[in-house]
């Protein structure tokens, strides 16, 4: 696209929008129940009532001072400058100065107090949101993308913060000054006021024309941003794959396409929105001209007591007059964006947390007996478990095997209480899970998860997560038991080595060893190993088996694994298929049965007999 630079600004592709159409689908910033949302947000602000009252008083004073400035100026022109007499001139000037100072002081106090109120409110809101998220059931998080939840904490909070900081006060000030100016202007010269007001309808028509377009264009831009983001995220997270398959030119080209459409949508959205201040400025200037011209003519004919001082007042006011209107438009947009964000945050806060009921008389210590009675469970539209029954005595080891998607992980999630059974009941120590204080119960459990998460902290701190009270020695002991000690020792800074984001810099297997050490440290009654050893090499696995053997003693253990030799010693092996338990029994019982388990075993054996 080699084109002359002078014409290039006019060659951007205008996105397809139809401003004449009524906004049929609600935009993102549509507030559903704004009355309630406002009241609720207000309650965060209104914790310190007297400070809020102070802000209001300041706002009234600020507006009053702001209005008196031009009035005094007009008075000075008419009574001192035009008649050329300076008696008492100094006093009036001092008065003007005092007004200016009062204005400055009041607006400072008002913003100062408001900011601390606002930041306190945002602090509370942030805290509530975060704490509440800690109580929400796992299914809440499964249904939403992390980015979506994050943006409540980032974008929405940001909007609320700036809005509370400034918008609330500004909206009040704007409303007050606007009314004030209107009244004063009407009192001084209704005729000249009429001329000034002539521009209001024109202004609104223009603004409507612009905002109708910008709203749609900003939607387009947002879509384009989303597309660019999505594409970049995918390709950057798969960077090595892109390289290995030499797809750099292709992804660069595709990225440029996405980037290009963002450029066009962004250009138009911002250009149109840039018209707003230019338009307001234009009207201001025209207004200035009309006020001056019409005022001059009126003064010439001596109609309606228009003096030079009146013109001065009107000229100053007309600038202050459109500004609050413009501010109001902006502030209301910001306010609605913030309210929409607040509504989204409140909808999170209104989500019901996990049940934390404590069954009366339930002993705090758990023996670890687990029973599933006719348990069924499904995600959204897909049934995963159908009437699963089993009973594991305290201290026993139960192993679950079966093809991917057969429901093994779901069984584990139900035991941990991440999900609630749709039908049937899960019992721990003979008490239905729904009657347990789930947090208490989890204190007695430990899990080594498929995709374990590590914090950006030292190795030591990450393992200590299993038991925050553990001493360094205990952490090292646990690492030894999990056979993680050897590799940790080899790290440049040993236990003090920092982990990167999401455990980067450590291999999958190493991360799992750390996770096992963590489980060892937490000394649970119920131990859940979800494919715990699938990424650990045979050598390490051999050592882990022995460590786990020790660990599992005296604890109820649930093991999910692909490899059969890790579960041969289990008290009961459950073979799962399609959400049901297809077979169960000990290793030798199942072999004799000549069923699925035996077939699995054979397939495994074949590979041995080369």
């Amino acid at each position, binding site marked *: 696209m080699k084109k002359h630079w002078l014409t*290039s600004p006019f060659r951007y592709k205008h996105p397809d929008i139809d401003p004449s159409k009524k906004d049929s689908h609600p935009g993102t910033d549509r507030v559903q129940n704004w009355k309630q949302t406002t009241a609720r947000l207000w309650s965060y602000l209104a914790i310190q009532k007297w400070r809020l009252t102070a802000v209001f008083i300041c706002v009234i004073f600020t507006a009053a001072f702001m209005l008196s400035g031009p009035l005094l100026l007009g008075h000075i022109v008419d009574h001192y400058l035009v008649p050329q007499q*300076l008696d008492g001139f100094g006093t009036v000037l001092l008065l003007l100065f005092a007004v200016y100072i009062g204005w400055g002081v009041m607006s400072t106090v008002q913003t100062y107090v408001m900011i601390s109120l606002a930041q306190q409110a945002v602090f509370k809101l942030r805290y509530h949101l975060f704490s509440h998220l800690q109580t929400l059931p796992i299914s809440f998080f499964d249904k939403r993308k992390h980015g979506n939840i994050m943006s409540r904490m980032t974008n929405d909070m940001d909007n609320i913060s700036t809005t509370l900081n400034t918008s609330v006060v500004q909206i009040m000030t704007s409303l007050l000054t606007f009314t004030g100016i209107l009244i004063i202007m009407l009192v001084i010269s209704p005729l000249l006021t009429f001329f000034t007001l002539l521009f209001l309808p024109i202004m609104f028509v223009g603004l409507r024309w612009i905002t109708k377009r910008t709203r749609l264009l900003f939607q387009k831009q947002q879509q384009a941003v989303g597309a660019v983001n999505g594409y970049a995220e995918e390709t950057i997270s798969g960077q090595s794959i892109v390289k290995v398959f030499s797809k750099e030119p292709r992804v660069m080209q595709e990225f440029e396409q996405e980037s290009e459409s963002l450029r066009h949508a962004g250009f138009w959205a911002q*250009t149109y929105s840039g018209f707003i201040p230019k338009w307001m400025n234009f009207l201001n200037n025209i207004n200035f001209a009309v006020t001056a011209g019409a005022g001059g003519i009126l003064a010439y004919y001596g109609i309606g007591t228009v003096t030079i001082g009146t013109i001065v007042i009107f000229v100053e006011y007309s600038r202050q007059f459109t500004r609050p209107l413009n501010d109001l438009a902006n502030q209301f947009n910001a306010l609605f964006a913030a309210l929409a964000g607040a509504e989204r945050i409140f909808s999170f806060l209104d989500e019901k947390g996990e049940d934390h009921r404590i069954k009366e008389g339930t002993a705090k210590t758990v023996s670890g007996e687990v029973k599933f009675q006719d348990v069924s469970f499904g995600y959204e539209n897909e049934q995963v478990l159908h009437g699963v029954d089993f009973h594991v005595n305290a201290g026993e080891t139960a192993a679950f095997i079966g093809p*991917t998607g057969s429901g093994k992980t779901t069984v584990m999630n139900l035991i941990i209480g991440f999900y609630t059974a749709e039908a049937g009941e899960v019992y721990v120590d003979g008490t239905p899970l729904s009657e347990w204080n789930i947090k208490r119960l989890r204190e007695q459990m430990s899990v080594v998860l498929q995709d374990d*998460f590590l914090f950006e902290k030292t190795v030591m701190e990450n393992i200590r997560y299993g038991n925050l009270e553990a001493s360094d020695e205990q952490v090292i002991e646990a690492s030894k038991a999990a056979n993680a000690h050897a590799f940790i020792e080899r790290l440049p800074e040993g236990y003090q080595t920092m982990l990167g*984001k999401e455990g980067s810099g450590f291999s999958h297997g190493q991360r799992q060893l750390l996770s096992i050490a963590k489980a060892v440290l937490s000394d649970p009654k119920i131990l859940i190993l979800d494919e715990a050893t699938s990424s650990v090499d045979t050598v390490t696995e051999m050592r882990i088996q022995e460590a786990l053997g020790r660990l599992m003693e005296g604890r109820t253990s649930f093991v999910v694994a692909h490899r059969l030799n890790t579960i041969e010693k289990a008290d009961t092996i459950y073979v799962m298929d399609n959400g049901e338990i297809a077979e169960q029994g000990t290793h030798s019982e199942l072999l004799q049965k000549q069923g699925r388990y035996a077939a699995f075993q054979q397939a495994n054996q074949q590979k041995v007999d080369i």
Partner: protein
Amino acid sequence: MKTILRYVRPYKAAAVLSFFLLLIELSVELFQPLLLARLIDEGLANNDLGLVVSLGLSMAGLALLSFGVGVLNCFFADHVGHSTGFDLRNEMYKRLQESSLEKLQGFPQSSLLTRLTNDITQVQNMIVMLLRFMLRSPLLLVGATIMAFVVNARMALILVVFIPFLLLILAWLMRKGMTYFGSLQQRIDAVNRVMKENLGGLRLVRVFGREQHEIKRFFMENEALQASALKAFRYTALTSPILLFLMNAAIVLMLWIGGAAVQNNEAQVGEVVAVVNYATRMTGALGVVGMLITLLARARTSASRIEEVLEGTEKENSGQYNVKDEGSIDVQFENVTFAYNESRVPALNNVTFHVKRGEQMAVLGATGAGKSSLFQLMLRLYEPASGQLLIDDSDARELNITSLRNQIGYVPQEAKLFSGTIRENVEWGLEGAETEEINKALETAQLGETVRALPEQEETLIGQNGVNLSGGQKQRVTIARALLRNPGLLLLDDSTSALDAETEAEFLGALEAYSCTSILVTQKLSTALKADKMLLLEHGEVIGFGTHEELYGESAFYRQLYQSQYGKEAAT
């Protein structure tokens, strides 16, 4: 900021023009009070109605002119901003694509993404705003002072005294404000980090019942953020009253002097009105200073974050010789030592082995033994620190990196797919492949049946907007992707871990129809035993290389390993 400004250079002409347009717009505006002064002093004082009307009309005309120029300014300013943003975005993405992985390691992915989108938007906004109205404030200060001089030099002198003060204070305030906003940004990042970690480690937090611990952690960061926000916001809140106070003091002084001058017939009323109007306009312009501080502070942090990427990346080295497509590849490691990070313990230490054309080698070793690193070097994603990697008997460094990678079918440990259809994903292996070829690859990867059962077969969408494949299915798509290119060298990095034993066995059987050299990392000895050779690694060093029989005879470690899996009796 300097590097970023280089990207504005192609649009310099447009930027200069938009600046001039802004200047015109502004000077038109500055003429208004002058005309007002004449209207009062010449029109009204002399009862000249004609002059009043014509002055009013010319003021209106000027307003129209200023509007037209302002709209044009919008077009040019946005053009400069959005085109610079576009170029920056593409350039940054390009650098990321071309950079060696070693350099990219330093940047967490999420941070790269924000740099690519948010940070560039910030810089782009700054350019647009600067050209559209931010420069207006300083220009207005200067312009209004000049005009005030034209109207009445004595009163204007006050402005000349005040303005340097004003500018000095402004500069100081802005500098301080920027640092406050810089640290505010850091605090926001810290809070977000806790939140992000909490979401990532959700299950972990729940299982270990660490909710209170997490809440405490968040509380502390949140508190620090609040303190920092209060500081920054209060600071900006303070700036405008200080500036306003100064300007208003100047206005009062000017009125004092003006009043005296009018009485002594040294000045006219209109002149006083005009000069005061200039001063109040300046006051208005100062109102945006707070906004300017925030915008500039944000843009500056963003700019430096972008620069970090632009300067922190480095192109991959590529040699000149192409790798020939001969169906299989010969791979040789000679005393190769390699570390991901200079300060780290080497991942590979003095590794030597040789895999001949068409052979299959299994790599066994403990976690962290350096198995995956072998692959990273063969793919030339990283360079060895010392030693030599020979591909078909020539030094890998002299080979064209693309031609080498095109000969390799790599299946990573963690299945990474892209949104799109299954077919599109498999086609990554070989663009424009025939349907039969794709089907053959799917069949070999033991995915044929699964795909046929899907609603739209290989055209089924996967990922965010499509069906969710299980871990094992994803792994098989990545296998098909690698096989489609008919590679000379197939690298399987524990790529069958999520497959059940039956499927794995069938896949390995079907693989025998391919002529390529293959190297597979595996956790399962049973799988390794099928290979021609085995490489045993421990702590980055080779502790055994050869066939099963050779190793069983030579390596005590291997014997122990074998017996742990199959028992002593199986060894014979």
